[in-house]
């Protein structure tokens, strides 16, 4: 999933860096599409990694929680 989240922005970023016509489209004031997209890529990378880490941790935790819950409170059978 991390690949999908980053692959699309990367593909668009590569396209924008290869095409001056597309890259120089004005987005806001003097900000161009190319530079705005570059910052977006950075944000998506950091956000995607944070989400990936949280997902990996939470997918590990239910298993241990289940294991803990299935045990008797006193720890004996």
């Amino acid at each position: 999933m991390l690949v999908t989240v980053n692959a699309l922005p990367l593909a668009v970023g590569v396209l924008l860096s290869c095409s001056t016509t597309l890259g120089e489209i004005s987005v806001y004031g003097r900000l161009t599409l190319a530079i705005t997209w570059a910052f977006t890529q950075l944000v998506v990378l950091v956000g995607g990694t944070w989400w990936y880490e949280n997902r990996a941790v939470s997918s590990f935790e239910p298993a241990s929680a289940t294991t803990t819950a299935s045990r008797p409170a006193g720890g004996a059978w």
Partner: protein
Amino acid sequence: MTTHLLSVGAPDLIGTAARGAVISAFLVFIGLCLLWVFTLATQDDDPERLYVAGRSLPPVFNGVAMAGEQITVVILVSLPGAIALFGYDGVSTAVDSALALGVFLLLAPRIRATRRYTLGELFSLRAEGPGVRIAGAVVTLCIAVPLLMVQLRAGGITTALLIGMPSERAQVVCTVLMGFLVTCFAGVADLRGTSFVQVAKVPVALVTLAAVTVLALRFFDWSPGSLLSAALDKSVSPGGYLSPGLWEHSAGGGPLGTLSDHIVVILGTAMMPHLLLRVSAGRDVPAARRSLSVAVGLTGLFYLLLITTGFAAAAVVGSGRIGAVDAKGQGAPILLASEVLPHHSTGRVVLITLVACVAFLAVLTAVASVTFAAAVSVTRDLPGRKGRARIGIGEPAVLRLAVVALCVASLLLTTAVHRYPIEFLLAFSLGLAATCVFPAVVYSFFWTGFNRRGLLWLVYGGLSLCTLLTLASPAVSGTRYALLPEQDFNLFPLHTPGLISVPAAFLLGWLGSTRPWERTTHRRHTAPGPASARSAPAARVDSGKDAVSG
């Protein structure tokens, strides 16, 4: 040439009044730093503790150290300069360098699950024998030595600029002195020792970059929009500053050249041997993944600050002045630090000294990390371990000798070619990592049919192709910024070979492993037999998958 341009103006970036104080504070810092470094020296003889800190580094600590691996002196001084001079093209390179850690994040848990930490050992996942280990060591050395040369040279140039003597001779002297100090550190430290220095470097670098940017914003009423507008107005091409195509180096090859640069920077940065070693220092697979997540966050912040520093340098100093000091803009951070506070103020001296200290720490750690990883590969992957044990030379002694030999060789080579622009060696080094390491690691993890022949074809074929294409590229001849500008034998139009060499390496790996022409001949003459013996190593790789997915 960079050196030529540097010596033309002989600019004094920080002024005579501040120079004495800056140099004194810088020397005190170096002395304290070396004292601290020598307390980190290890007498441990256990190879596992020496190479990967006994796989005991806490995840956050290791993650910060991994972020520190990205803060090299070349990145620190070249990228803000490239952004200040070429705008978007520099930003694009910075973003690619950050994205590389995202690629590494996908492979790191698998690498950690194998418990292998040199390229030779990783290559042995599906292919046995000393030839495979030697191939790993050869690739590691071919990546490391050019990288060390570029780092040492950047360190020398930066120090010469700081002390106000950017002449060719001063640069060589500074390079040799820096190289000597770094060799002393690399010769005594282990992975744990370098980790402590990396961890100390990260906050210092982030705070310094943030301070420089905030002080620059003060000139523009704290408005980032006004700062960006000023950067555009003071750039060499206000109309094209925030669009692709201003950097002649990357724009020269057209869209294909840009695509090749993306491939090389992203895949090459992700596959550096010192990162493989670093990820193996984590306790287990989840710890390695967590380290990478921490590293991605810090690296993202670092590159964001680096980009703002580049724009701030263009806005405050101006692209023209930055380009006059150095054609590649390596003086940009120092110029910015010397301009954001009033002359003759103590704060200015402190700020310039901080920049100098970060640059020194960046040289120290970058060179030590790369050298250490290469020396570990030499110690473990090259043949002769049994012979060395018989005559009583242990692995730690071989490691120390290899570290010193690598540092000295790189320093001698850097000094010998000081008249030439060798910055293209960084792209060559990244190109080699992208071509020889990335396809081999991907095949080793995801294709059970990958075997010894495929690996050797991939590694040596990729190495040869990468070298030949670089030699025939505009980075070596035919352009004014080439290694040999007077010569013209650039038959290959792209500056970096990645667009051709990476797919070619994948193809060579597949051809060598499957040999479709022999299979056709074999089918003609014999009936199909049982599966080959390559399933044995494959099973070993697959055994690590459970750990990764868990």
